[in-house]
């Protein structure tokens, strides 16, 4: 278990550190289930996941995780109200067609939502666009405009405003500096919208949790 622990991505480590032991968690877009497996092993959570890719779903079930294959925007609707303590949307928001509807659904089925995404207003991205005049390609967003699954660009500021406008509450946030698949990283305290590569937010419905 320790070996597994040390292998997890830094951003997932932060998310895991926010989750109360023994809680009920659903991971939307859970991939091969690294975070779920970690949360079950280390935090004793009751975890389940949703993933679109058959291969990844199969990997999860083979590991003994409870995961179902489907589109998160559709699958999120079938759960009863407040079925979960935490609903996690890790590194997927930038690929969602209707983020507003999804985030509202997350807070219907869960008490708290945890959302993370690559920060598009990182200074390197700004500089790239300014100097090269081309759509930025970074380690966090490594795709070209024509092959990217990421249909939106989001900055930390944008997300904060979105949450405010939607009448929701940010309960906790972390701006971090790490690279995709990296196990190491750091919290960015100063000028996060400029310096952080990722943002992680815990949100709740209006009036707090």
């Amino acid at each position, binding site marked *: 278990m320790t070996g597994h622990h040390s292998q997890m991505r830094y951003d997932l480590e932060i998310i895991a550190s926010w989750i109360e032991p023994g809680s009920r968690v659903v991971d939307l877009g859970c991939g091969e289930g690294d975070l779920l497996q970690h949360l079950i092993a280390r935090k004793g959570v*009751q975890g*389940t996941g949703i993933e679109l890719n*058959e291969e990844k*779903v*199969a990997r*999860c*079930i*083979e*590991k*003994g*995780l*409870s*995961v*179902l*294959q*489907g589109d998160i925007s559709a*699958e999120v609707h*079938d*759960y*009863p109200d407040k*079925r979960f303590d935490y609903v996690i949307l890790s590194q997927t928001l930038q690929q969602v067609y209707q983020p507003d509807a999804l985030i509202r659904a997350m807070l219907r089925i869960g008490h708290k939502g945890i959302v993370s995404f690559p920060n598009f207003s990182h200074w390197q991205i700004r500089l790239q666009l300014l100097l090269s005049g081309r759509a930025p390609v970074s380690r966090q967003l490594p795709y070209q405009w024509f092959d990217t699954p990421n249909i939106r660009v989001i900055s930390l500021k944008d997300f904060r405003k979105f949450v405010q406008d939607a009448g929701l509450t940010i309960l906790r946030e972390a701006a971090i500096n790490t690279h995709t698949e990296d196990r190491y990283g750091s919290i960015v305290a100063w000028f996060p919208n400029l310096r952080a590569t990722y943002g992680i937010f815990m949100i709740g419905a209006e009036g707090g949790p």
Partner: protein
Amino acid sequence: MSEYIHHDKERISVGLVSKKYFTFAEPPDEMVLESGSRLGPVVLAYETCGTLAPDRGNAVLVLHALSGDSHVAGCYSADDEKPGWWDCMVGPGKGIDTDKYFVICANVVGSCMGSTGPSSVNPATGRAYGLDFPVVTIGDMVAAQKALIDHLEIERLLCVVGGSIGGMQVLEWCVRYPEQVASAIPLATTMRHSALAIAFNEVARQSIMADPNWNNGDYYEGPKPALGLAVARMIGHITYLSDESMRLKFGRRLQDKSDFSFNFDADFQVESYLRYQGRKFVERFDANSFLYITKAADYFDLGKQHGQGSAVNALSKARARFLVISFTSDWLYPTYQAREIVKALKKNGRDVSFCEIEAEWGHDAFLIPGERLPMLIHGFLERVAHDRSP
């Protein structure tokens, strides 16, 4: 389900198995069926493999489909060329690992493979039941299995697993005896037949009943309705395959000839295949059993029988953990029907995993050796077994 009986590539097998019989519901304590009719005595043919743990907590009940039997894995004798129908799944180190689990498989009531059915002798007349055999339901099949499980003194099944009509029995088990089922794997199945599935079954039944030898089900002392049953099986086979699998397997290739015969012999390979499957089936299966079991499948409606018309209500009774599986090319029970199961389970807050396996083999994909399904079942069972033991 069709016959895909393959020896394991590495010849790994549970080894020798034998068919056993359990008799219950002796008059005057007959089984009361869902229709209100009484049936007794009832014999169930069953087989087991693996070893029952001292705490009796490692039992896995496998439920077979329309034409299956209790012979799930292994062989009857050393020179037996034909292993059980799910030998690729059940055995040492396989998806359902007989080194860890005690596997039970019983032939359903109404069948003809050792359990009481229309071809059994009616104690009241001394002749085969024929159409005097009462119509049985999926619920009746499960109630009979429950009697067997109680007889084996198994308080709680670690898992119930089955495909197609076997999958219907899995769902029925979960709502009928919720406390007795720790986990469930319904494969390539549905909570109720679509009009399409009923239509195919009805055409198959009509084919049997149109055979003059059928004689209103009273044929056990004369010639069997072999042609009718063969055609019924041919219809079934079409529904078990898929457009894609038939294209790959047969295409428009001709059978042992280079040109059309310009008569009504089997020209195409697909015709020859269906005729062969039909003939082979007649040798081992009873036409009346085919009528009864397909009728049971058509009547099955989990929501109607257990939830006042609502599948969500019905599955609110379930206490098991679920792994639901569908196959992309299954047009008999397409994925949307598996998703309805998943949806109802989610609404009830049940622990459910679901995977739609990419497969070209149609409805029968669950019977065909492959990597994915055994790995999924293996991982799922490991977790269930792990969580059971402290």
